[in-house]
């Protein structure tokens, strides 16, 4: 069985093996294999192309940008998404503006081990996809399955634009697949993860699995939730979301990020403005609570949406 984390490692291995322009740069990713082992053995297999960086997020991204200008395809690892804020300037002001300003594309992939895990705490748990989506010039991805972790990372490397790849740490070890896909939905297309007729649950990342579990709970009551996995939050596949809402008439957005200006807020804004007539009820959103992500597992379990809180919100939306 292949884990989500192994899929990310294998995607990088394949990118290195098939494209001589690819190299990896980041903290502890060489011989040590990365904090999560997403680059395990790659420095041995590809000598000189998997490089340890100093503890310098700004320089890591800046170096990737310069390398991309010179025709390379760098994949850089932020040890945790939370630390990418130290490289934020290079990502949003340099990489994201380069093509618009100069016509020179900036094909870099910035890997962000994202999201909460038990015990992670305020600085090792953040979900920053909405932050990066705010700036023009970036593609922001949130793979929620082993297959997507693999295929979307490979597609990211092939893309001529800068990609913020928000891989979810909660899914690293327990999410498993039999085999990796040869073909996949392209970046920018959402996926109906579970069809249903009564309400659309639009979600991404680790929340996909909480939402699917919530759908199981509702199924026991005879209600069918349709679960939409966004896969990429920028570009956002509004068409698939609207088509789902057209079928169900109800929208529940679930996101692990903080509420203000988040992906859930954006989805609701789009459905309300572009598909108001499709709605039979006011849209609902569930986000993490508006505090730093707490360390203690008991607090963390309540801080973020879970199957039971999603199910409760769905029941409310459906008046059951």
């Amino acid at each position, binding site marked *: 069985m292949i884990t989500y984390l192994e899929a990310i490692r294998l995607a990088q291995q394949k990118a290195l093996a098939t494209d001589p322009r690819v*190299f990896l*740069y980041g903290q502890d990713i060489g011989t040590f294999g990365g904090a999560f082992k997403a680059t395990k053995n790659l420095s041995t297999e590809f000598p*000189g*192309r998997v*490089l340890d*960086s*100093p503890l*310098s*997020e*700004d*320089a*890591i*991204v*800046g*170096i*990737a*940008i*310069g*390398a*991309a*200008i*010179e*025709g*390379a395809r*760098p994949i850089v690892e932020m040890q945790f998404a939370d630390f990418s804020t*130290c490289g934020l*300037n*290079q990502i949003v*002001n*340099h990489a*994201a*503006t*380069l*093509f*618009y*300003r*100069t016509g*020179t*594309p900036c094909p870099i992939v910035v890997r962000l081990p994202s999201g909460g895990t038990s015990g992670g705490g305020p600085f090792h748990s953040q979900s920053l996809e909405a932050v990066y989506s705010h700036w*023009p*010039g970036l*593609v922001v991805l949130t793979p929620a399955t082993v297959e997507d972790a693999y295929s979307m990372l490979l597609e990211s490397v092939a*893309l*001529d*634009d800068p990609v913020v790849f928000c891989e979810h740490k909660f899914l690293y070890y327990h999410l498993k697949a039999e085999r990796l896909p040869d073909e996949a939905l*392209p*970046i*920018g297309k959402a996926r109906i993860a579970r069809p249903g007729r009564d309400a659309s649950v639009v979600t991404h990342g680790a929340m996909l699995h909480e939402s699917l579990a919530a759908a199981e709970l509702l199924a026991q009551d005879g209600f069918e939730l349709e679960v939409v996995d966004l896969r990429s939050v*920028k*570009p*956002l596949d*509004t068409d698939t979301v609207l088509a789902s809402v057209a079928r169900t008439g109800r929208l529940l957005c679930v996101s692990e990020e903080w509420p203000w200006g988040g992906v859930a807020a954006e989805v609701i*804004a*789009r459905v309300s*403005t*572009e598909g108001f007539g499709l709605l039979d009820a006011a849209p609902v959103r569930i986000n993490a609570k508006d505090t730093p992500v707490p360390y203690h597992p008991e607090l963390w379990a309540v801080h973020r949406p879970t199957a039971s809180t999603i199910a409760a919100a769905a029941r409310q939306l459906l008046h059951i």
Partner: protein
Amino acid sequence: MAKPVAPVSTSDYIKAYRVMLVSRVLEDKLAALYRAGMIKGGVFLGKGQEALSVSVGIQLRRGDLFAPLIRDQAGRLAFGDTVLDTLRTYLGSALGSMRGRDGNIHRGRPRDGYYAMISHLGAMVPAVAGGLLARRLRGESGIVGATCLGDGGTSTGAFHEGLNAAAVDKLPLLVVVANNRYAYSTPNSRQYACADLLDKAAGYGVTGHRADGTDLADCLRTLRTAIHQAREGGGPQLVVADLLRLVGHGEHDDASYVEESLKKSRLGADCLQLAESHLLDQKWASADDLRSWRNEAEREVNAAADRVRREPIPDPAEEDWTALSTATMRENPGTP
């Protein structure tokens, strides 16, 4: 160590001076256009820094990388930027390299090794380092990358991170610091507490070089040595040049905060005038030569300005309004 550094010849000096002269004439024109209200946005000049700047740009080779900063008009021209594109960018011509999408000093042609600075100081240090790293990974050697910044830029995290990372990988990076005494209005005394900016070189484990930023010959020699050492595998080189910014931060700024004693000091000397005196003293050029060179520069600048003023401005209807190169990744929700 390999080859010795070639000495700076008379013709090197004259060539560099003439680029400085074009740069000065061009910047005087930009200032005049600014006062006439014809420039879109700000004007940021390098008066007093031409000797240093030209010494970087003119001694890089085709295939090298160069990320100039705000006061590098002379270095830009020396590296291959043109009077025409400078004016196009400042005047907002649709035909300029930035097509109206960015202006003034934020211009470049990254594919040609001429990186377009962002305003966030220090940011270009790791970018040039990355360009050099990619070249090395491709198996290329003998390439140098240079970037310029001021005393203020040395206080940024990006400068520190970039120079340190370049030093770790021993990249052929040249970081040229024009210590022009003020970052906008902030004097050195509020910028750093070390005795000398050059002391930082030791901290990063890189070679340091000092230049007299008012003296073209010294700048040419110092930069030639630094570039040579980087090219020959000596790792990053930090050059600190002492000089004074002879203009405001931008043309909107009267620089009233600059201390009189500094203006009257040796630092306050105009490198262009000093170079002219040197040319005359050494009998490398006559007063007639200097006049005719200046006239030539003025003719070029005026002709380019007249041409650019007749050029089309960017047409919003012709814009595709996308920041991404991949068509399938584009979206523009909520815009008309």
